[in-house]
């Protein structure tokens, strides 16, 4: 067991060589081996999860160095869930949705997995920067795809904004280092308390770190890259990014705020807490407002993610066990729902040429399974029982009421109505509007889903994702209980 943690990162990184080398000459073998590596990653994630369930959180220092100078890795109840989410999503999407594979892009897929897994398990703030950039680079290149300048321009802007964010994060890490002289999360927790939470150095570090991660989360006002990037990427890439691209940095934010800075920091510097609430509320409002105005479905979904991330940040700001549980549950719930929804947009685009809300008219009859799954996923985003979206909002509202944060309560409840408005538009079109004349498949820009069995596999993925939102929702108490030891430890 002792080396499982570094294997979690090493396997996808080294595995990324396989498609790069074999992809051109032996594409079939390359694809099969990539599937093997991804499935192996799932196995590793499960093994780590089981080990943590049995014996509690585990740490590991790379290279066997003393903890103070080495790079630490850590797996606890919360991070293992996200590691598993990354592995399962990447494997599932690769097997079902992804058809246009090439060696280099498969390498990027694996590197993306490696970067995200690294973010989830690392216990060193600089190491987190490195993995943030690894996953970011892979994401920029995946968005750009193999052809097309529209994608290239969107990817370029994504790159610029993402790199600014990561560099600001790095600057924040620099401030932390200057303040305490250490980079390990455990050491920082103790040292930051010793330095004093209201020291300008620490506050600035927090702001920089949060802004840096906030770019990845696409919080207002740094959200502009998300709709552009998710709309131009191929269905498999957009599904992968939508599921994981903001979720794991979201977990990283939770981890940094509560494991490094701790809730006492939020208490000591009320301005920071207020700032987080403001950013969260603004993201909810902006996400909702823009989502209502979109006609392109993928852009609509991207703004929906902005809204959901706003709710997550609100949960972080309230900083009670229920609120942090809400943030984590919302992260997981949004990931599952968005994965299914983006895969479904791929089905609709490839088979019917439909990319806009109006273009979805009547598709409920032509693609009943997909449309049904889409409706269920939207129900989770709106936050109706018995889905995981409702569970997350419930915890959040309970936490807000408990803390007497009435503005937050109103915002969360209103967000349900706003989400209902944009989700209702799409679902209504699917089922009730008359189908536009002519539903022949239209060739879209390259990299989409091939016909036939690949499309069926995608529909399977969409249906499974929709079912997952309900099942995880029904199991939300168990999920919260699973998170509880770690969350209570933080607070």
């Amino acid at each position: 067991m002792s080396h499982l943690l570094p294997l979690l990162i090493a396997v996808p990184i080294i595995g990324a060589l396989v498609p790069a080398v074999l992809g051109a000459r032996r594409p079939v073998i390359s694809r099969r081996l990539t599937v093997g590596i991804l499935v192996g990653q799932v196995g590793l994630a499960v093994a780590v999860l089981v080990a943590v369930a049995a014996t509690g959180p585990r740490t590991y220092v790379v290279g066997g160095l003393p903890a103070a100078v080495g790079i630490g890795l850590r797996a606890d109840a919360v991070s293992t869930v996200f590691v598993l989410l990354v592995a399962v999503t990447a494997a599932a999407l690769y097997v079902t949705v992804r058809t246009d594979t090439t060696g280099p892009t498969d390498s990027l897929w694996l590197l993306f997995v490696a970067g995200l897994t690294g973010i989830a398990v690392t216990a060193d703030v600089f190491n987190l920067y490195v993995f943030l950039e690894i996953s970011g680079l892979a994401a920029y290149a995946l968005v750009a795809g193999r052809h097309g300048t529209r994608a290239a321009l969107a990817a370029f802007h994504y790159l610029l904004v993402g790199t600014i964010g990561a560099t600001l994060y790095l600057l924040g890490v620099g401030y932390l280092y200057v303040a305490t002289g250490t980079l390990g999360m455990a050491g920082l927790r103790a040292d930051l308390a010793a330095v004093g939470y209201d020291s300008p150095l620490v506050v600035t570090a927090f702001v920089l770190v949060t802004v840096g991660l906030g770019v990845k989360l696409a919080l207002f006002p740094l959200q502009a890259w998300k709709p552009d990037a998710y709309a131009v990427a191929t269905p498999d890439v957009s599904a992968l990014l939508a599921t994981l691209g903001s979720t794991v940095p979201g977990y990283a934010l939770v981890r940094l705020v509560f494991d490094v800075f701790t809730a006492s920091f939020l208490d000591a510097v009320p301005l920071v807490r207020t700032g987080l609430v403001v950013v969260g509320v603004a993201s909810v409002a902006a996400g909702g407002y823009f989502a209502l105005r979109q006609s392109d479905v993928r852009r609509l979904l991207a703004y929906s993610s902005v809204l959901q991330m706003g709710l997550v940040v609100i949960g972080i700001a309230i900083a009670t066990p229920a609120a942090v549980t809400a943030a984590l549950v919302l992260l997981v719930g949004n990931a599952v729902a968005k994965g299914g929804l983006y895969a479904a947009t791929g089905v609709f685009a490839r088979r019917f040429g439909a990319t806009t809300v109006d273009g979805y008219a009547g598709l409920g009859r032509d693609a009943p399974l997909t449309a049904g799954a889409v409706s269920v996923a939207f129900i989770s985003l709106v936050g109706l029982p018995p889905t995981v979206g409702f569970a997350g909002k419930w915890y959040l509202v309970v936490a807000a009421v408990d803390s007497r944060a009435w503005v937050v309560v109103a915002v969360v409840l209103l967000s349900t109505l706003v989400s209902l408005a944009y989700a209702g538009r799409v679902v209504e079109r699917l089922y009730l509007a008359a189908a536009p004349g002519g539903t022949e498949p239209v060739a879209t820009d390259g990299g989409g889903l091939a016909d036939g069995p690949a499309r069926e596999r995608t529909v399977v993925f969409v249906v499974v994702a929709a079912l997952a939102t309900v099942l995880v929702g029904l199991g939300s108490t168990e999920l919260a209980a699973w998170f509880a030891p770690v969350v209570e430890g933080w607070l």
Partner: protein
Amino acid sequence: MTTFDALFGTMVGSRGAYVVYALLVGIGLFVLVDDDNLVKKIVGLNVFQTAVFLFFITAAYRADGRAPLLSATGPFVNPLPHVLILTAIVVGVSITAVALALVVRLYDEHGTFSETAIREARP
């Protein structure tokens, strides 16, 4: 010590260097945001990143510090930030490479580096 050491030491000791880095950050971000030429945007990004790197390294400075070699003695400059920044420079290089690759693709298609022209030309 050479004149350069003295000069640098004074700048760092009086925290003047940090002002320079702040200026560089500002310049880099401004160029990135404002300039229309895609390549210049990348240059701005690099300037911005370099400023941050310089901040880190300057933080490692120690008056009268020596290079951290096993054979040397006496007070050493803190080696850790240097290590970190080496990593960060590599990251920066990769990002620049990816960015330039994207710009090359855009240039091949549109024949210009101008962002506004490319936006207008988009289908």
